[in-house]
């Protein structure tokens, strides 16, 4: 992997809950905020829908960063379904830290991305941070050839 990372190597998957996480992205779009095209949004019903194994699988498929945008704790329409989700994702961050992949590759934003400026700033900062993180290296990149 080239030492200096060009912009196309950053690949962010954003799991955004349809009731709060997605609103910031929509607002940012309507205000024509210019953001790097390095993220793809997958809408989910609730942050609880985001399976930790899927995040691990995404890392192996060449995704360099995952953001999970859910509702504010106590604001989940599914009767506090986002509480266990938050606990799981924080535990997954510990595991990613231990193996050196870096918990910072998993961004958890509960109730913090519903405004367009919040979403825009978060994506820019996440993009910058990921481009500074060491390149995923062969072992993390796993089997890119499986496309």
């Amino acid at each position: 992997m080239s030492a200096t990372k060009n912009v196309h190597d950053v690949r962010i998957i954003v799991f955004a809950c349809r009731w709060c996480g997605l609103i910031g992205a929509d607002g940012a779009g309507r205000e024509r905020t210019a953001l790097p095209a390095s993220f793809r949004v997958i809408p989910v019903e609730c942050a609880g829908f985001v399976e930790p194994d899927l995040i691990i699988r995404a890392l192996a498929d060449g995704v360099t960063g995952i953001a999970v945008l859910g509702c504010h704790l106590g604001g989940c329409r599914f009767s506090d379904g986002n509480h266990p989700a938050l606990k799981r994702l924080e535990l997954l961050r510990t595991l990613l830290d231990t193996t050196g992949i870096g918990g910072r590759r998993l961004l958890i934003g509960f109730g913090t991305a519903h405004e367009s400026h919040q979403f825009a700033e978060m994506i820019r900062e996440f993009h910058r941070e990921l481009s500074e993180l060491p390149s995923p290296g062969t072992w993390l990149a796993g089997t890119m050839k499986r496309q």
Partner: protein
Amino acid sequence: MLDELKKKAREILKAGDAQGVLGLKRGLFDVIHPHVFTAAEELDSLVTEPKWPLAKTARAILRDRPGDFRLAVAARGCDERAVVELIKRNQIDRERILILGYTCGSEQAKACLCSRPWPEKRVAGDIVEGIDPLADDRVRPYLEGDDRARMERWAEQLRRCIKCYGCRNACPICICVPCKLEDDLWVERGAVPVEMVPFHLIRAFHLSDTCVACGACQEACPAGIPLMTLQLSMREALRKEYNYEAGLEPERTSPILSDFNREPRPGQALPDWIHTMDRKT
């Protein structure tokens, strides 16, 4: 300690509390293997060395014996904790199992990096001080230091994995049939060396809140990969956040399966806004 255990086992068999005692037997040609002792006399050949995880064996035995068969298990601390986790996961019926706990020696504790080398229901042996696994120098290089170096160190270890599933089969808590690691969606089939991230991280995360740190996976790994070290950081996180340790409290389900009202973080208010970029919005 061994004869205390034998005495207790004989009492239980005689009193009919259990129809069988699961322990290690020194059989023909001094081969040691797990055995269900049904008669009191047989118990002379009961041994407690080497360390052998018996929880999963106990589950299998109880599965194919009639409903009223009760089994006693000669269990070390980690075996007992593994049985408690299996009870919590409805794999073993609480009434049909009895724990004959015996303690481990300090060198065994040092070998397994064990912090609690004694069972709750102790029948034989005296309690020895456990060690703090995170402070051990076999573990520290894999948990501290800078990300880049740590990632390389883990990569160098995990690259030697030959996907023999030994770790999964030895683990007393890994009970899923079929297992996700055999599914093509999660781990590519037939690729050796294995896709390190999915195989090892998915397996490690599934056991994040159930691993009793018995070290069976590490001992079973032919490539000698420090697999238990993967779990230690998550166990530490659970202990620090919710003071929960797998296998200790039979009535308490894992804290990450419930909301903050039922399983709060002691001493912390409900974290209402979370932004892991450590930027206070």
